[in-house]
């Protein structure tokens, strides 16, 4: 997976209409990168194991 660049994060924030300054983006970037890694790991696991159907 590509590393989350500052430019990409800024573009995504702009698309979401979030007025984040440089300091915000610097703080946010490692947090979002971590979260995206977690999300990717959980998605891959989810493809391997399916939950049981609801009992009711």
């Amino acid at each position: 997976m590509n590393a989350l660049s500052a430019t990409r994060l800024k573009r995504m924030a702009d698309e979401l209409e979030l007025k984040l300054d440089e300091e915000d983006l610097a703080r946010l970037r490692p947090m979002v990168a971590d979260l995206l890694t977690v999300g990717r790991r959980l998605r891959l696991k989810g493809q391997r194991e399916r939950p049981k159907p609801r009992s009711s």
Partner: protein
Amino acid sequence: MNHSDVDQVHLLSVAEAGRGIREGSVKPTEYVEALVERARRLDPLLRCTVTLATDAAIADARAAEDEILHGKWRGPLHGIPVGVKDCIATAGLRTTANSRVLADWVPENDAPSMAATRRAGAIVLAKLNLNEFAWSIPGEDDLCPPPRNPWSPTQLAMGSSSGSAVAVASGICPAALGTDAGGSVRQPASNCGVAGLKPTHGLIDSSGAFGPPSICEVGPIARTVEDIALLLEGMTGIPGYLDRVKKPVRGTRVGVPHSYIDEARPDPEVAAAFAEALRGLAHLGMEVVEVDIQGLADAAAADFLVLNVEAFTAHQGWLRTRIRDYGPSARAYHTQGAFLSAADYTAAVRVGEVVRHRLDAVLTAVDVLATPVVPVVTTEAARANKARPHAGGTAIFSAPFNLTGHPAISVPGGMSASGIPIGLQLVGRLSGDADLLAVAHAYEQATPWHTMRPALDSAP
């Protein structure tokens, strides 16, 4: 204890104060006035209150006295002053969530959990401090700077229901309401030497509390498990928790996920306290067995993913229009979920379903699980973990059960060499809150930890 001694009323449990009020030896107005005085004296040091509701609390206490005098006793919470985490809406009383976004907000209506607690007769004494919107790392520049731990006021109390746990531990109020989406009731309860319950998901209506709805519960914090049962009755409107809290627990099977706990590498003092707590449970005639539950670490990570997505979802309007009113940490914490996909969120929810089934299966072979609450002792160590919360961090033992919905309680379970309390977490079956409280009560009564109090009464 002489209930009429106003210098000592802060030591009363909810149950003791409730009996005193019914018998007439404790007057709600005097009780409230004594606690207001205590809050005024201690809060400059502890910083646990956002708003002290002095006038309204005294008026409510007077009304309670009048009702009781005229035979309209509502139950054991009638006339009991409680604190309320300041993200839980209180009608007519400023609710800030410790954010400049809501600095002047006075709700028209109580959150359902608050309304139920008031219907049971409780009085709102104070709105209590928290991490901004219960999801940020607190700082000195927050609307209200973070609460200090009454056991060691040079250190901050763990959050996010920090003010609730501090107020209860310091005797400012006998009980408080908090919210818990990853451990935010249990962690501060553990860190402050009091009991805190995250009830089964949905048992208490948690709307009106600014929590992520899939995983957040409003829960009680108190100095005894008996008081937790009383609060749970009030907050749910369901009787019977108190009756069942003292039921025999000999023969209860306690499952311990040792490999999961060991992988988290808890602080040696936490590990030692936990080992001693397990010996205490065995001494009570419980059978302590090892269990293996795959996926708990994934569930902790998935809980935070869900939290982040739901936090952004709830805050996106304000984040687009008032982002500068959030503190720097809350701004980042509430924004990060915006960058996740629907597939990420769905995967996290699925992890919850898978692990919930596994937990349910394990909880047919054992009655409760036991783990530490927090892998570290101090707030400084917790902050080092929380800098990267997505792997579970400080919430590695607490967050899985938010995602799965199982009830979990922190009870005092030890004391570090530096004098900071250490909690024991017990986890019950879905909707098994009453059985969980019975095990917690038995453990609490067999150990000295819940009787210890921070040395505050020499504080200026």
